[in-house]
């Protein structure tokens, strides 16, 4: 049996605006199995980011259910949701979202602070991950001293620091040139091979082709899904 990491059923999301309710997601259903690698595509304004934010427990749906790793997110207490964001999910943003005042090491180590990890362990783990994304030389630099591609690597290292099962990335290469994008995607590919489930949003077909599965959004609905692939089959497809 394949374990499902994400199970979304009849998900609705409407934003309250001055002009009244503005529906963005309309009956979205999606199941993502452990080890899957999903690329979400679709035109601007189709609700991709809205969906990702709900998957990342940063926002709540208006209706419908979201079961993450076997737990219904709607029933969780605030502290539990914080713990999920801290340990189950690693979120990578288009705009990197690093703390400008902190060094790269401190940025990567920050989730560990909220996990209650000791200072020595934090630094050891964070420097390990910076090494993994090829930035060990810049450990004590600040985000404004490095390039966009490097910043995104730091953000990925931060997302990975608590060893999450799931990486969510909303247009992780949206601010990067194509060469840098390929480098970032190579990191994601490697992570997926390690068994980490990845869901990412992109506008570019060649980025989406890194994933095993493509899901297309249109006007708040999933209009195309290349289908969940069992992990055994993944091996055949890619190796």
């Amino acid at each position, binding site marked *: 049996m394949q374990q499902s990491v994400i199970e979304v059923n009849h998900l609705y999301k409407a934003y309250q605006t001055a002009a009244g309710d503005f529906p963005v997601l309309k009956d979205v259903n999606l199941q993502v199995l452990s080890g899957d690698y999903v690329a979400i595509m679709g035109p601007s304004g189709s609700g991709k980011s809205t969906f990702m*934010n709900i998957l*990342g427990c*940063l*926002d709540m749906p208006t209706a419908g259910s979201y079961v993450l790793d076997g737990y219904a997110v709607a029933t969780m207490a*605030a*502290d539990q949701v*914080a*713990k999920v*964001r*801290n*340990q189950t999910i690693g*979120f990578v*943003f288009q705009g990197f*979202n*690093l*703390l400008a*005042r902190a060094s790269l090491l401190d940025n990567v180590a*920050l*989730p560990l*602070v*909220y*996990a*209650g990890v000791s*200072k020595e362990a*934090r630094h050891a783990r964070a420097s390990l991950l910076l090494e993994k994304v090829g930035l060990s030389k810049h450990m004590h630099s600040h985000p404004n001293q490095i390039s966009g591609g490097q910043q995104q690597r730091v953000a990925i290292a*931060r*997302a990975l620091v*608590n060893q999450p099962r799931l990486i969510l990335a909303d247009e992780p290469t949206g601010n990067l040139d194509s060469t840098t994008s390929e480098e970032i995607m190579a990191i994601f590919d490697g992570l997926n091979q390690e068994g980490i489930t990845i869901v990412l949003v992109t506008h570019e077909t060649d980025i989406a082709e890194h994933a095993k599965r493509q899901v297309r959004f249109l006007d708040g609905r999933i209009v195309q899904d290349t289908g969940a692939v069992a992990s055994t089959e993944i091996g055949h497809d890619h190796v």
Partner: protein
Amino acid sequence: MFSAMLGEAWHAMGANRLRTFLTMLGMVIGVGAVVLMMAIGQGAEASVKRSISAMGSHLFVVLSGPPRMGGARTATGNAPSLNVRDANAIVELYGVVGVAPVTMGKGQVVYASNNWNTDIIGTTAEYMDIRGWGLSAGYPFSTSDTRSATRVALLGKTVVQNLFGEEDDVDPIGKTIRINQRPFVVLGVLDSKGQTLDGRDQDDTIIVPLTTAQRKLFGNQLPGTVRQIMVQAESDNVMSMVEDALNSLLNQRHNIREGADSDFSVRNLTAIANSAAETARTMSLLLGAIASVSLLVGGIGIMNIMLVSVTERTREIGIRMAIGARERDILMQFLLEAIMISIVGCLIGIAIGVTGAVLVSVFTQAEVIVSSASVLIAFSVAASIGVFFGFYPARKAARLNPIEALRYQ
């Protein structure tokens, strides 16, 4: 985790130094003012208390002449209406433990080439006990000195300094001085008493036997009369009883009918002193209260800047929440920052307040007391202000919705 947060709070404080400094300044001024004002107030209180205990306890003074009416003494001639026999009668009253008739005047004192004009008190040996006034050198005079009107004198410290010089190279005991041309032998030197409540120097005094003063110094209008009689009661409890007894005894002795004006007045010195102490205490409280207002203003300054800080760092808060910060982590982060600003400000304020107190005491000679209690109060009030005024902004930060915070530009 807590130490990581402390470190971050410290960093955040350093991120905008000028702003942090200005915010802190409110706290510094507030705490400095509280510490300084309390030091001045407590100093005043202490010096009043010392004057009171120097005066002697449970004291009445009976003055010659009718009570003052609206500040002006109604004229009934200059002759004192009290006499030594009144004093002897008062001794017999229940609750009275000491009586000393007193007559006083000014005298010109000469020793060698030194000249000094001072107050002369003529009284009995008991006066010293009643006032709780000891000698720093020599001996007091005795009842036999009073009886035979010997020319002996006890000198206050100020008098000694003016006649014999500031240095201690001349021992005044046994020396002969001249008071109003007449020779007196110095028997003793009085302990220093400092100032009275109204600022008179009590050490600028010479005490001589009552009879000596009456017969040999001031001449005499009526033999045996005195200007005042000091009366000491046994305890606080009998004070009002003794006061009534003094009035009725003297009215009877002076043949004053009920309803008629007395030719003497009884004053409760202890009550007057206590009310002065009360005034000093009220002053001290008032000063503290006024200073506390600036502490409050400092607190509001902290709250203001923390609100600005929360708004500025909305995005940062969103990021922190997105990677797993709980509400209480965010709350603690901002609360710690506010507390840190107020505590650092408070420490600087205490240093400035103490320095100010020392300067005040050096330049005005006024007594100031920096008590550990006042420092502790200032410190805990400042810390509470940090918590109180930091809490609202911190809670505002903690309650932010993560996605809205992340979208904040």
